[in-house]
């Protein structure tokens, strides 16, 4: 076993060796390096063939038609293209958009930009379990609503949204439905038809593919129109210009093929390890699972250890690669906006750890991680005046703190 142990699959996944092999074929001098847009020679034809095979594999993963797949540089670009593209094309129909407070910044900041352009955005609050409910969406719907944009699963807490129920509603009202599936594509089942999804963002590097490649699914029937954000050679049916990166696309295609084929296996593996980890740490006093919905990603666990500060916890866990919802790790000094939206107290939001496992995680790694967490929490509680006070039966909310 090598340390540090990687427990941050929600941030990025290692590229599957089978994917790497396929990609390298497109980079070699004697390989498939032609421009897929070249129509006049075999170099172009071969590259185009590889692109179309990848397109079919990605389409199959989400039960779409290959002609509905648009290659982008990643989920951030896909989110931008979907939301700005729809807003700009349909603005004469209405200028109201519904999203949630726990979306990825790629969605939130795009919505903020649209607000500056005169659009109105409703940001839904999740319930205490971290769920954005269909009822909340229904309540926010207006006559001038043109788009609902929600994530399939949240990247910090892993809670899964009931897309089918929301999709049925948006379709009935003639409102477009965009889903950010960066955390779920290849991890849990997605059927764009059964779920009535109109646009869907996928990221290559979250499903064991390469970074720098993503997909926007754009429905053909009933037809969804978007205004291009990137203009040029008219690639991807005019929706996203730019020479296609054959090696990246082939990599994502292979990653999608493997993910579909091995989904049941991957799911069982991740779910078992997550449970093993949870079981091994749940005897720690004052542990809280954040986003305790029964519908969650198989491999993601977000927990808070009360009276222990997140950054020092991460510092103690130097043999584990994981992330904290707490302040200082991300240059901003604020606790996670996702955990705050759940209604968590500042203390708990400051003490959170996000651990995510995946295809290459092992039981041995999980056992080691659990033991490290036990030691670290114990050590930091020894040092914590808040723990002392808790043990003395003092209610911390009654103390007049000197905020600084």
């Amino acid at each position, binding site marked *: 076993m090598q340390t540090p142990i990687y427990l941050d699959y929600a941030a990025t996944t290692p590229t599957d060796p089978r994917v790497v092999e396929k990609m390298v074929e497109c980079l070699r001098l004697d390989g498939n390096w032609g421009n897929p847009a070249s129509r006049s020679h075999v170099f172009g034809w071969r590259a185009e063939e590889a692109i179309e095979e990848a397109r079919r594999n990605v389409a199959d993963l989400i039960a779409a038609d290959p002609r509905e797949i648009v290659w982008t540089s990643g989920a951030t670009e896909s989110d931008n293209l979907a939301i700005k593209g729809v807003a700009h094309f349909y603005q004469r129909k209405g200028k109201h958009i519904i999203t949630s407070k726990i979306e990825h910044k790629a969605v939130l900041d795009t919505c903020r930009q649209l607000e500056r352009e005169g659009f109105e955005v409703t940001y839904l609050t999740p319930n205490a379990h971290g769920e954005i409910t269909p009822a909340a969406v229904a309540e926010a719907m207006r006559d001038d609503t043109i788009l609902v944009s929600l994530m399939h699963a949240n990247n910090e807490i892993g809670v899964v949204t009931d897309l089918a129920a929301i999709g049925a509603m948006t379709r009935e009202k003639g409102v477009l439905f965009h889903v950010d599936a960066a955390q779920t594509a290849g991890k849990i089942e997605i059927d764009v038809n059964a779920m009535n999804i109109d646009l869907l963002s996928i990221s290559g590097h979250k499903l064991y593919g390469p970074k720098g490649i993503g997909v926007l699914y754009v429905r053909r029937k009933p037809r969804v129109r978007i205004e291009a954000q990137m203009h040029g050679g008219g690639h991807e049916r005019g929706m996203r210009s730019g020479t296609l990166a054959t090696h990246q696309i082939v990599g994502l295609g292979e990653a999608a093929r493997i993910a579909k084929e091995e989904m049941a296996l991957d799911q069982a593996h991740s779910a078992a390890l997550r449970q093993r980890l949870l079981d091994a740490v749940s005897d720690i006093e004052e542990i809280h699972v954040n986003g305790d919905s029964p519908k969650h990603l198989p491999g993601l666990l977000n927990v808070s250890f009360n*009276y*222990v*500060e*997140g*950054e*020092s916890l991460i*510092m103690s866990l130097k043999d584990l690669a994981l992330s904290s919802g*707490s*302040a*200082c*790790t991300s*240059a901003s*000094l604020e*606790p996670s906006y996702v955990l705050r939206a759940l209604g968590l*107290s*500042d*203390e708990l939001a*400051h003490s959170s750890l996000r651990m995510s496992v995946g295809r290459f995680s092992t039981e041995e790694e999980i056992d080691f991680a659990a033991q490290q967490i036990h030691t670290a929490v114990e050590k930091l509680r*020894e*040092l*914590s*005046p*808040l*723990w*002392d006070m808790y043990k003395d039966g003092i209610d*911390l909310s009654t103390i007049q*703190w*000197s*905020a*600084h």
Partner: protein
Amino acid sequence: MAYSEKVLDHYENPRNVGKLDDKSNDVGTGMVGAPACGDVMRLQIQVNGDGIIEDAKFKTYGCGSAIASSSLLTEWVKGKTLDEAAAIKNTEIAEELALPPVKIHCSVLAEDAIKAAVADIKTKRGQEGA
């Protein structure tokens, strides 16, 4: 984030962790910060009849730099008079630990903690404002 060796040393081996009897007339307690801000420091000093700090203990909820700042402070105040201790500046702590700009507030908190502890014992001994 990279920590200086001194921060790491204090974090790995914190000095003078513990609690003194805050009811005692020889003990001054300073508790500063707030859980909402991600750090709370409790610094306690034991002072003899001549006004010399004989012992110091701390507990800190916060990042590595906050723990190191309070640990260092307990080392520094021992043997000092109350006025000498209260004159310790956050910049000295920040410099000793090579804190980056984003962590300067940890040293400020430590300075606030010792000032609060000194004020507490002075109040207890009826030397308020002395």
